């Protein structure tokens, strides 16, 4: 683990998972820097957006989507899941480590789940370290 590593995180989220980042009651906010990108549906998260977040300096990228079976547009979260898996493989292939990219299903208003997911993300990022392409 890199000392004093304060990860930069880009969070893409479906507005149906939560409306605004302000609604998130995140614990330990000083442990990371976060930038959020709202989407009308998680299916709008294209491969290139995820990669460009890393190009822009993110150490980790999270895509928060509705629970499976509860997408307002039927299959948006399934599409997001497949795209995330594709980009994770691409990150592995280019040596950036696919563990920097996360997908979390969360029910609207479930802050406990969000904080649990964030803990996992921070734990993984502590292992993989800063983005080597910055």
């Amino acid at each position: 683990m890199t000392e004093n590593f304060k990860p930069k995180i880009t969070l893409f989220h479906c507005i149906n998972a939560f409306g605004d980042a302000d609604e998130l009651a995140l614990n330990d906010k000083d442990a990371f820097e976060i930038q959020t990108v709202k989407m009308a549906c998680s299916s709008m998260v294209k491969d290139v957006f995820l990669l460009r977040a890393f190009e822009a300096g993110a150490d980790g990228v999270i895509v928060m989507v509705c629970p499976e079976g509860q997408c307002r547009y039927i299959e948006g979260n399934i599409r997001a899941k497949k795209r995330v898996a594709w980009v994770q493989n691409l990150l592995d292939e280019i040596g950036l480590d696919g563990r920097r990219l996360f997908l979390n299903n969360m029910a609207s208003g479930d802050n406990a789940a969000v904080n649990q997911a964030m803990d996992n993300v921070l734990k993984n990022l502590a292992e993989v370290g800063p983005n080597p392409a910055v």
Partner: protein
Amino acid sequence: MIVGEQKSIAEIKAIIAPYKKILIMGCGTCVKTCFAGGEDEVAVLASALRLACKKDGKDIEIEEFTVERQCENEFIQEGAPAIARNEGVLSLACGAGVQAVARRFANTPVLPGVNTTFIGVLEKQGVFTEECSGCGNCGLAVFGGICPVTRCAKKLLNGPCGGSQNGKCEVNPETDCAWQLIIDRLKTLGQMDNLRIYVAPKNWQTSLSGGPRKMVREDHMI
């Protein structure tokens, strides 16, 4: 359409290694449809290569440009200014597109980023299957619109081999038996008599076996 598949990042990195300014040139026709070389794939590849090169400490400038069709000069020409700004072109078109760009820009290295795979159709979203071998002598009228030259593992022209089971090929049980499909289709069309037509051994001279082919339409020549 022509179906292709993007090469691995490792292979592409090796191909573009000698260059510091490279243009990734997409094609908005066949390879766009099969997610190998359209505008979106150009953007993803450019981003991935920038990240990979930065991680490796290699300075590279990558420009992106996609034309409607890379196999026609009229469209390729639109990329001329971008090509002039770069040391080389990584083409995400099929092999014909790569060669058309190379022919038009004789002094620029034009490199392939896609493996051209086959002539096929979109069977369902995300699944592409080979259905034409481009043999140069189409017999689909006799076979009810299903090509045994491409879709029968044994390329049989006068009926099934007898090895298929439950409509699947004995060579690959995941593949439909072409002759089962042909017979089903001929039944539907009321053309079962087609099975009585003797199809002579195929003359492969019209295929690639006779060397690269050329088609000339005098009426369109100037």
